[in-house]
């Protein structure tokens, strides 16, 4: 099925890929009602982790979606070193991989600012709400306006709920 995000995450987690969910899909996990058509992750761009990512997507026919001929993903220990971002399309959805996030920092800083969630027995790291808000503010894109307003409202609603307990 095209667009099965949970399935992509399952592949990554089962492949022991070191990653954190960021962007719109992180917003969904936190409670946003915006619909997003891709999954953004921040990950360790070490050759070992990128090769693990490639292996985990094996069978999903990953391609570089920004290249004119949608080149197949074919990473080697050598070529891994040349990437800072990977914009991929697979049989079950788009996956964007970044090595850092504006407003938060590099992968290690992003990982520190993440929370571990368990979804259907799969453990996934998700950028925490405060850092997601910081990242959206830092990018300052008009298309993020609604998501940012939702995230800030969610933060407020969460605080209110916690106080009410």
């Amino acid at each position, binding site marked *: 099925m095209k667009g099965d995000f949970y399935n992509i995450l399952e592949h990554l987690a089962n492949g022991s890929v070191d990653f954190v969910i960021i962007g719109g899909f992180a917003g969904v996990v936190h409670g946003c009602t915006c619909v997003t058509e891709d999954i953004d992750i921040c990950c360790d761009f070490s050759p070992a982790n990128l090769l693990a990512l490639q292996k985990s997507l094996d069978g999903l026919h990953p391609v570089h979606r920004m290249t004119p001929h949608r080149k197949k993903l074919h990473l080697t220990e050598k070529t891994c070193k040349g990437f800072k971002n990977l914009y991929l399309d697979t049989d079950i959805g788009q996956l964007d991989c970044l090595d850092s996030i504006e407003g938060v920092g590099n992968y290690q800083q992003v990982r520190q600012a993440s929370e571990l969630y368990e979804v259907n027995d799969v453990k996934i790291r998700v950028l925490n709400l405060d850092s997601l808000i910081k990242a959206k503010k830092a990018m300052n894109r008009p298309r993020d306006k609604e998501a940012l307003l939702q995230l800030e409202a969610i933060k407020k*609603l969460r605080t209110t709920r916690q106080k009410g307990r």
Partner: protein
Amino acid sequence: MAMKRSHKKTDENNSVQSDPVKAAIDYGIDISMLIQNLKRPPGERIRRHQIALDTTLALCKAKRI
């Protein structure tokens, strides 16, 4: 007089505290949907998002008959 002052202070406090929620409402966001979503576990939020996305993609492909 004292009552009036106290009432004003409460309003001010509420307006500061509820600002992000008010801003979202003013923008046209349905806060009740967010409140309902926050009651759901993350896995259920992901499942419902997938349904919304599948529906959106199906509608994009829909043909007028």
